Each structure stands twice: as structure tokens, then as C-alpha cells.
């Protein structure tokens, strides 16, 4: 089995891990302790595993860790802390957009990618941006409000 020393820069911190080819970025991140990156379907249908890979929101379950070598990865936890939450994180908490919380990290990553490109999105644009993130609890209404609230705040 081939092993490669992969360098992953996650939330500003560099990690060096020896990995075989069949490990996905999702697995590598969770094994490194970034358990805010959730495993929902492992096939790119649910978006729970979404992370920013060199600034782009992707399903980490469909990226091989080797393909992410030398890349910058940002997870939801990297966007803010309990003491200094990101406006999106605050908005999600305040609007009741979090119920079970499982879709939330991926949703926030997708929303962050949207706001990076389009600081004042319309409702339709928000819906399109999170169309790869499934939520079984909220019905999406409060999630959309949260993104609008965070956009207005900035």
C-alpha cells in the first residue's frame, strides 16, 4: 500500500500525515480532530461534509486527501470561535436555524462561500448557493433568514 506524506493546512494550522490513497479529505479531517466536518452520506449528495478548499466550497467526501496535499482548508470551526463567532455563526444561532445541528457546519461553509463572492445575495441566490446542503429539521426558512441577517450585518 502506498503511503504519502500529505500536508494539510487546516484553519491556519499545518498538519503532516502519512496516508494511503483511498482516504478521503473528510476522513483525514475527522481523524485529525476536525469533527465539525460531518459525514452525512459520503457520496456528495448531502453537503454535510462541506469545507472550503483553497477558497472553494466542496464536498470533502469526494476529494482524496492526496488531492488536497498542500491545500488550504477551512472548516466551520475555522470561521469563528465561541468568544468571537463569525456573523454567520451568530446569525444561525439567533434565528433558530440550528435544530439538530448536523447540517449546520456544511451550510455555513456554503453560505460563507456565497458571501465571499456575493455580499448581498437575493433570496433566490441564497437558495441556489445552499442547494447542495440538505436539512431535515428546519425546512430551510430560518437558514435563509440567517444568511440574509449575516449579509446585512456585514
Amino acid at each position, binding site marked *: *500500500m*502506498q503511503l504519502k506524506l500529505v500536508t494539510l493546512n487546516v484553519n491556519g494550522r499545518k498538519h503532516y500525515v502519512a496516508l*494511503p*490513497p*483511498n*482516504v*478521503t479529505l473528510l476522513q483525514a479531517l475527522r481523524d485529525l480532530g476536525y469533527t465539525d466536518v460531518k459525514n452525512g452520506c*459520503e*457520496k*456528495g*449528495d448531502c*453537503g454535510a461534509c*462541506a469545507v472550503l*478548499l483553497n477558497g*472553494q*466550497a*466542496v*464536498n470533502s*467526501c*469526494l*476529494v*482524496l486527501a*492526496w*488531492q488536497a496535499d498542500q491545500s488550504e482548508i477551512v472548516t466551520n470551526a475555522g470561521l469563528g470561535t465561541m468568544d468571537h463567532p463569525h456573523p454567520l455563526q451568530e446569525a444561525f444561532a439567533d434565528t433558530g436555524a440550528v435544530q439538530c445541528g448536523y447540517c449546520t457546519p456544511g451550510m455555513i461553509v*456554503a453560505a460563507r*462561500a456565497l458571501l465571499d463572492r456575493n455580499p448581498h445575495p437575493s433570496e433566490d441566490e441564497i437558495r*441556489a*448557493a445552499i*442547494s*447542495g*446542503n440538505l436539512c431535515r429539521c428546519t425546512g430551510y426558512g430560518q437558514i435563509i433568514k440567517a444568511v440574509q441577517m449575516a449579509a446585512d450585518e456585514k
Partner: protein
Amino acid sequence: MLPEFELLMPLTLPEALDWLAAGAPAVTPLAGGTSLLVDMRGGSSRPGVLMDVAGLDELHGIRQEDGHVVVGSGVTIAELLDDPLIAQYASVLRQAATSFANPLVRNRATLGGNLAYGSPAADTAPPLLVLGAEVELASQAGTRRVPLEDFWVGVRQTIRRPDELLTSIRWPVPSPDSASAFCKLALRKADAISVVNAAVMVEYFETRFFPENLVSFAPAPMCRHVRIALGAVAPRPLRARAAEDILRNRPLTPAAIAEAARLAADATSCIDDVRGSAGYRRRVTEVLVRRLLSDIIRNQVFS
């Protein structure tokens, strides 16, 4: 868990072609992984050796060359959406890209991958077919260009040889007197495999008036020729030639459009599957082709 495999990561295209030329063991190119890794996770595919081509610089870029638009096979669907050449010279492809899967997948899925994977429901197929696209296949022995229409020979079967890599896709810059459109029917608004997809490109000249009924005339462009491409309704994406033939040098009246739509439905060989029945798909093909042609007329005449 993904099954075990060996992963090659060539730094250049020649290196990649060397690996493919070696022949044994067989090497499967991996780009965005949004189809292949899903199959491997699900157990329907067990390649022994994968080769990452997503990072090859030679497969990136969109440029204009000799009256053609040339797109590297490694260009992602998201990159297509952002590109000004695509917006200007391939709006039909841009439309398909807008509804392709979801934004997370679009950041990884590549145009070459979508074609090479060979699903009959590939959303980029009908637009590229009506644009008259060709694909370039490269190997250690050289390169060849093949009309996209001849690229697929069956479900998930292409004429790409095991030692070849799909390196680029090109099409002629469309005539300014042409208009095109794409649509898909799917079971969700996003993140859905097409039940039926279709694209149309009309090259027209002048608008004449034709009697609509006993008291009024309606405008109809004179159609020089039209291309109609359908997906998810046959083992491979296809052009509806008989439908195209009856519109050549004819006015695009509602009656002509209706006749073409019926012929387009006749060109299908749909199957029943989890997303729809054969009969439903056939019926929807007729509706989508009629709508696409009618919408083009409306937008051209009144815009």
C-alpha cells in the same frame, strides 16, 4: 470506505500519457471524482489504479482559437459559469451548467469528466452537441479529434482507448444569427439527475409573417437549419436528425415546431427506470422540444 487502489499523480500531461501507454495494469483517469468516487464508494466500480488528472495544467483554460472556443477537459463546471467566453459563445452550455448538480459538486466536476463518464443523462452533452463540438483525445501515439456525436457508443461506453486521455473540447463560434436554449426535467429543482434533457440551436434568417388563423398573422423566423439534441432518452445523448431535417429552410411556425417535436420524440428509445417510465420520457421529449423552439421564437422576435 473507499476500496484500496493505487494512485498515480503525474505532474505533466506527457507523464500522464506515459502511464496510460504502459497498458497494464489499466489506469483509470480521475478528475473531479464526483461520479467515479461515488461509484467506488457504492461498490459498482473497482479500478485498481487511478490517475489524478485534475491537477494537470495542460487540461485547464478556456480560449478562443481559429474561430473556435477551446475548453480544457479539466475545466470545472463552476469555471464554465464564471467564464466570459462561455457566456458570450456558449450560453446554451452555461444554462446547463447553472442547473448542474449543486454548487459544491460544480466546484469539482469537470467538463471532460462529465463527457468521459458517458452517462446518457450528462447535462453538458445536449448543449455541446448543438454547438457542434469535437473532443480531442491524446495518447503517446498522437492526438485525434472526434465529433462529439461519435464519442459515445453506448451507456457508459466511449471510443476513448485505454491509452488515451480526453484533453479538450472545442466548437465553432456560433453565428450571430443563431439562438440556442437548454432545459432539463428532473425530480428536484437542484441536485438531480435529468429525467430528460434537451438543447436546441436555431440558425435563422429574416422573419416573415404567416397566417395564424382567419384574422391574424404571426411572425415566424425562417430557419436555415436547426440542431436538436436529447439526453437521458437513449443509450447515449443524440441528435434528432429527422426532426432537424423537416425544419431546414422552413418558417418556424407553431405547426412546424409541433411536427419537429413529434419527430424528436420518435427518435428516442427510452427505458423505464427509477426516475421515470419510458412512455413519460417520450411524451416529455416532445413537450420540451416544442417549448425550446417556441421560447427561442418568442425571444428572437420580440426581443
